[in-house]
């Protein structure tokens, strides 16, 4: 790891200013991904701005809106009584992520900022357009079992590894960010981006922008929600495919539905067309199959991830079934 300067400001503005002053400065919160990336020479900041003293912690609900401070730990959100009872999908997704120790370090903002787990991104001797633009995509014709089936480009077929973000995109969360030009709100679905010609950019944040909170509106999905994470071992592994499924069922008819997938695209993958199919239909396997079929439109596989074309719809059916029975 290279040496770097370190500061720990206690006001948002000071933190943002510090980033603006140095081209190679970065925020650090939990550090569970950034420290790892720095150790491997993938990210080489000259200055770390430790934001842990900023007033961005806590979970609050008022006016039917749940607001989660960006520095709130993954474990704190997952165990928070309001989240468990009213937003179980988010709690389940968080608990499916990483390990208890990492959830005690990782923050909500940091979870959103985590980078892909593509092995070519992690090995500095291999080509990777995300790490080193212009070097090519090692995964495209390489070992791409973990990789995208939606929204990829020739430049990058990596996936976003977060579980939490899959639940947040399903729940129409809104991200509040503070930056040199002031505050703005970003709908969660627009926070992460597809790789296109700039896979080095994971999200739509601009230089100096700091995530301050995430908000979710109260909803009717607390009764029937399930986060299914399908992976190569039972715990402490990234998703091959994950599904966030939430249903508003009244008299066995699906009144409203939320569906998103992880492990399939460069961003958490919202499935609106499949949600629409479900609306007004009975909560039966036949409906779920229809939704799964709709969800897969436009999917494309590579040499080693063709199984996802079957695993993804099957997982949607399984998740919807479990959500409906929850």
């Amino acid at each position, binding site marked *: *790891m*290279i*040496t770097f300067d370190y500061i720990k400001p206690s006001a948002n503005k000071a933190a943002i200013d510090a980033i603006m002053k140095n081209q190679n400065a970065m925020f650090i919160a939990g550090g569970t991904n950034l420290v790892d990336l720095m*150790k491997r*020479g993938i990210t080489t900041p000259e200055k770390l701005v430790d934001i842990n003293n900023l007033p961005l912690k806590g979970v609050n609900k008022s006016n039917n809106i749940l607001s989660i401070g960006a520095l709130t730990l993954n474990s704190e959100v997952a165990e928070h009584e309001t989240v468990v009872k009213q937003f179980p999908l988010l709690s389940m997704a968080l608990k499916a992520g990483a390990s208890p120790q990492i959830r005690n370090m990782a923050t909500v903002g940091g979870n959103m900022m985590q980078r892909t*787990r593509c*092995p070519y991104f*992690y*090995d500095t*001797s*291999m080509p990777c357009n995300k790490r080193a633009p212009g070097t090519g995509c*090692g995964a495209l*014709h*390489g*070992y791409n*079992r973990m990789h995208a089936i939606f929204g990829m480009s020739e430049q990058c077929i990596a996936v976003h590894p977060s579980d939490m973000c899959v639940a947040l995109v399903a729940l129409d969360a809104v991200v509040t960010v503070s930056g040199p030009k002031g505050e703005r709100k970003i709908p969660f679905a627009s926070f992460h981006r597809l790789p296109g010609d700039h896979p080095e950019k994971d999200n739509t944040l601009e230089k100096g922008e700091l995530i301050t909170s995430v908000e979710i509106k109260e909803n009717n999905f607390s009764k029937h929600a399930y986060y*299914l994470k*399908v992976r*190569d*071992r*039972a*715990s*402490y*592994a*990234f998703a*091959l495919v994950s599904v966030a499924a939430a249903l508003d069922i009244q008299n066995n008819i699906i009144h409203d539905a939320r569906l998103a997938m992880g492990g399939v695209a460069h961003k958490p993958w919202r499935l609106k067309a499949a949600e629409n199919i479900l609306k007004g239909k009975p909560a039966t396997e036949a409906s779920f199959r229809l939704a799964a079929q709709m969800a897969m439109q436009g999917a494309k596989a590579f040499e080693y991830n063709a*199984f996802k074309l*079957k*695993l993804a719809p*099957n*997982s949607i*059916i*399984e998740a919807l079934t479990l959500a409906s029975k929850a």
Partner: protein
Amino acid sequence: MENEFFFNYDTMPDPMDRVDGKMKVTGAAKYASEHPVEDVHYGVLVGSTIARGVIKNIDTKAAERAPGVIGVLTYLNSPKVPGYDAGGNPVKGRTTGQPLRVFYDEVIYFNGQPIALVVADTFERAVHAASLVRTQYDAEKHSTDINANLDKAVYPRGRSNDYTRGNADAYKTAPVKIEAEYIVPVEVHLPMELHSIIAKWDAEDKVTVYDKTQGVKSTQRSIMQAFKLPEQNVQVYAPFVGGGFGSALRTWPHEIAALLGAKKTGKPVKLVLGRDQMFTMVGYRPYTIQKFGIGATADGKIIGMSHEAISQTSTYEEFTEGTVNMTRFLYDVPNVFTRYKIIPLDVSTPTWMRGPGEATGSFALESAIDELAYALNMDPLELRLKNYAETDPEKNRPFSSKFLKDAYQLGADKIGWYKRNRQPRSMQENGWLAGYGMSTGTFSASRGNASASARLSADGKLVIQSAVADSGPGTATVMTQIASETVGWPANKITFELGDSSLPPGPTQGGSTTTSTEGSAVHAVSVALQKKLGELAIKASPGFSNAKTEDLVFDNGKVILSTNKTTTVSFTDILKHNSLNQVEVTSDSKSLNDQKYSMYSFSVHFVKVLVNPLTGVVKVNRAVSVADAGRIVNEKTAASQIIGGVTGGIGMALMEEGILDNRYGRWINNNFADYHVPVSADVPDIDSLFVNKPDPIINPMGAKGMGEIALIGFAAAVTNAVYHATGKRIRSLPVTLDKLI
């Protein structure tokens, strides 16, 4: 061997807790890199980024200029290793060819080959400086894909080629036959302790190392040969070893590199491999393709078997293992053919990993048996019993002991084998498909040379010493028990010292032989200590002066005169009467070369799996493993070996697979996030059972080996259960969910 030598278990207390348990649970146990050494510096290895070719230019200037750096070694400036120039095998394992000579020349044999060592005053500085080394190569076309190079398979040098008993093709004309190909991918040992060494030159020709090794004497010998040093000038310490599973059985290039770095810089050098380097520098279980043919009569008598294996090795060294061996003797089959070939590839040399060879071979054999049973519409256990080998059909001689039938019975009863519905895909639980499978494992049992010393002090402390290492099974605990039982001295007054090459020579811990080999030495020295105490009692203790040695009985820390049982003297009083502060004896125990018997341990694994019909996720829901490992010295540590083997077996069956990108010849998943090993949530309740009947031949304890059989066969039990659950036969490990949906 006479029955009176049998270890008397009736007097044993409940299984003893580990004698080093407190050290391990408090963090006091010191592993290789943790020993305080004054002025220690940090070594970091730089690996090549091509798989084959030569170094054209290696620029170390930036690294040398980096803060804290005191030396950068490459082939251009490294001190010479005298053993390399002698053309011998200075870092020899039991392989043929030339082990990798670190920093010897510009030739690259595999991707990740160590090409430079940076030594700096702090770890952080060494790591950073290592990233500054720039290398240019003349790369050559490499071959790392075994499947693309099958035409290059050769018989290993100096090995008898094929094995044939009866008619090699007999299975082909059998009424019912199975022909199938089975694949075991690369698996990596990945002990939790990263391979580490601290090397310190005490003088120009004298060195001390703290090393992660399963054999302090073998490491000492390797260093002696590499640097042409006498035995007394090479001191190896390994008091605690954080796992190995075979990876620490031989001396590797990084160990020589640390010695060279310390020599070059004049400072002690601590070198800890990165987790990624654990994939390239300390061996792995090789990728193996197996073709199996088996044929039987309609009523299940196996007529013939054919087992061919093709495995991989490096281009500079031949590695071989006993992949096809168990097919020759596990079942009573008249016609058997086996063949074993290897393909040299531009990769690092593989090495023995738990259940070496047999773990791979048993996957093919025990899958084929299961396939045959279903083809015959016969219970797989019944098929095994029908072809049970009462004597060794390969060598035509009796087994020293074989209680495999007992093991089958114990396991089948425990898991409720006969209560299942035998039809594939017939059972369900909560919407998941359920299935049962079983398999058999075996591994040779043996006894090698070992020495031990025993020193009893006047204060009653008994110290037993031997240069053996313990990578986890609990050697010190078991040896303490053997000494306690044999000497008749309380275990809490006994200390077993190990992990130090200056102690009487002990074995390398591998091949399931430690209890047999080392235990025999401890038994021998315990008997010798009693004898010595008897002589001393006759010499100076009241009432014993006219006694003959054969009149002495040793019981519970006392010598008793059998002719007059009221005449007794305690061991410590004997020392007093002789005005001795201590008494010390050393004994050797010789290897057993009994040609009259075949000696093997056996295991049986029963598994229940659940398979999600939509996602293909497989859960091992229950496991019952039974060992015929002779007498069990300590049921607690023995049970831990079984559950450990089963856990490793779950990894082998369901998730472990080292993946190389053949375009670069470089590992893709060289870390714990991408190379999956089981976590707690993958491991169900495991029943570990023991036949616990002594082997009358192998050693005074009657104990056979345990470590390997805990794993051998397990993967096949899982795939057999997956077949029963789903009707899908998976012949390529691991059973990841993509293979089932």
